[in-house]
């Protein structure tokens, strides 16, 4: 039998349904792969081996009874350690949640479980999703499977590495400013950030609530469509989830002929300075490919793009400092010896949070403080509107936007840890879609075997994930 860990969701499903192998064999193969490789990579923070095998046996029973199974039944998945799975640890990469056990299932996990998907374990990440390299985890770094001296991207670096190293068939991450797409690009996998409001965040550890979305990280675009179709949809436990977003099965089997009339926009601001030569060469190739397929390519301008990073580094820390106020040592963490309440807050938060989290809480507290609120926070909210209007304007002329996902390939471990601003710049192309709420996908550029992966990004209109997925599937067909 060929290596089961290399299968896509689709192929694994076909293999299970036609009884070429069992769900137990599929799960065991992935657990074995973790055992062999994860010592060097460290993608996982915790493994739910026993539960995974029990769940696999349950799927095998269904198959042996001759009953049909769903597309995700028996498929082993890895989840970023910000997503609640009842009874399993949830650390968010932070010491302050070291011993925390999720008391309920997040809404996405409920949906995965109802499809009988298998949860292998929880993956490493930058603490509270704050970072672009997975070097900010309190539990050690994750290495890029393509080159162990390099970062896997972040903050969903563990999920990206797990999929890239065949230690899970697919994974979920969360994306606030690029945390699904940037590590997907660095590790050579597909990463989708859905439209804001498409996927419920109930049971997701909150970082920046006006930006966070959960998204799939997969080996193929088609797999991303399968996983997205399952986790999307309204949830009355998340007030920001859209009651009217309808995502049908057409996501999974697009009509490629209908794509012919699409126009692809190339925003010139994304191809300017600072691009790694291998990234700009890859972009030319990808643009050339779409042109050769008969797509109209149109250069467009989104003049407020250059302000997106500044807007983000005001709004995100402001929201994060608010969200993380709950980690006060009273409800979470280890209380330690009895002391005065004020001291207790300082001590627990001071010892529980790592440097990047403290840095962002400090920045967020500053931009929200009396005297600075207008000049920083309110100003950023207004410029955010202008960034969003750029999107609205170009989407009158084009159907999707094509850009690089990140300005560079995966950088070396330790290269940017001393200079946070340099680290922040690696999300420069992914942040605008979060600010504007639009869906965006990172897809690996083909033909880079043996080289460090490069991803290209497609951004679409609100609720039009179908455009990104169908174009991506077409690219994958070659």
């Amino acid at each position, binding site marked *: 039998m060929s290596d089961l860990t290399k299968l896509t969701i689709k192929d694994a499903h076909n293999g299970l349904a036609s009884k070429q192998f069992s769900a137990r064999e599929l799960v065991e193969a992935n657990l074995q792969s973790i055992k062999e490789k994860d010592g060097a990579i460290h993608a996982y923070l915790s493994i739910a081996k026993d539960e995974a095998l029990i769940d696999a046996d349950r799927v095998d029973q269904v198959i042996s009874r001759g009953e049909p199974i769903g597309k995700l039944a028996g498929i082993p998945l890895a989840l970023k350690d910000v997503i609640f799975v009842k009874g399993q640890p949830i650390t968010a990469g932070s010491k302050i949640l070291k011993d925390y056990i999720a008391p309920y299932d997040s809404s996405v996990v409920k949906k995965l479980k109802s499809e009988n998907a298998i949860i292998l374990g929880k993956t490493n990440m930058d603490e509270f999703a704050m970072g672009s390299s997975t070097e900010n985890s309190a539990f050690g770094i994750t290495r890029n499977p393509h080159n162990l001296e390099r970062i896997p991207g972040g903050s969903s670096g563990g999920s990206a590495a797990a999929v890239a190293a065949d230690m899970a068939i697919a994974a979920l991450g969360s994306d606030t400013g690029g945390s699904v797409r940037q590590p997907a690009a660095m590790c050579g996998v597909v990463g989708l950030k859905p*439209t*804001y409001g498409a996927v419920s965040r109930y049971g997701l550890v909150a970082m920046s609530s*006006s930006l966070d979305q959960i998204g799939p990280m997969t080996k193929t675009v088609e797999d991303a469509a399968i996983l997205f179709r399952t986790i999307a949809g309204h949830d009355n436990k998340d*007030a920001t989830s*859209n009651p009217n977003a309808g995502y049908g099965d057409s996501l999974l089997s697009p009509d490629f002929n209908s794509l012919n009339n699409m126009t692809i926009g190339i925003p010139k601001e994304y191809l300017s300075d600072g691009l790694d030569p291998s990234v700009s060469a890859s972009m030319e190739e990808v643009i050339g490919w779409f042109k050769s397929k008969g797509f109209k390519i149109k250069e467009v301008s989104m003049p407020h793009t250059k*302000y997106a990073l500044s807007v983000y580094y005001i709004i995100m820390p402001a929201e994060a400092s608010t969200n993380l106020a709950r980690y006060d040592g009273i409800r979470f963490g280890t*209380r330690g010896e009895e002391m005065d309440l004020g001291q207790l807050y300082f001590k627990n938060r001071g010892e529980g949070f790592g440097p990047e989290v403290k840095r962002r809480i400090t*920045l967020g507290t500053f931009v929200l*403080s009396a005297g600075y609120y207008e000049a920083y926070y309110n100003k950023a909210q207004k410029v955010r509107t202008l960034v969003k209007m750029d999107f609205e304007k170009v989407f009158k002329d084009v159907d999707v936007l094509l850009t690089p996902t990140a300005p560079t390939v995966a950088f070396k471990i330790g290269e940017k840890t001393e200079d946070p601003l340099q680290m922040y710049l690696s999300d420069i192309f992914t942040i605008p879609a979060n600010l504007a709420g639009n869906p965006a996908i990172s897809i690996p550029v083909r033909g880079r075997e043996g080289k460090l992966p490069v991803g290209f990004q497609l951004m679409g209109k609100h609720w039009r994930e179908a455009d990104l997925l169908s174009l991506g599937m077409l690219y994958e067909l070659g």
Partner: protein
Amino acid sequence: MDFDVKKYTSLARLKVTEAEEEKFAKDLGKVLDHVSDLQKVDTSGVEAMAGGTSLKNAFRKDIKNKQESLTPNFPKEEDGYLKVPRILDNE
């Protein structure tokens, strides 16, 4: 720009070391210099945007739901009650 780290770490109830304080002042000074470019943008007449989309929040009805037990995660409990530090004096 110069950044008074201590003032904001105090507001946020964060204990930081002297080394962290120095590093944060340097790092955040750089970040604040970078974000100062926003001051150049003309935003007169532009509405502030508060969410990822222009959708309205869709609230569910506020009805009682069965809650999962939180006590296993709570740092201190006594007889099924959550124990918190005293915040008021006896007087």
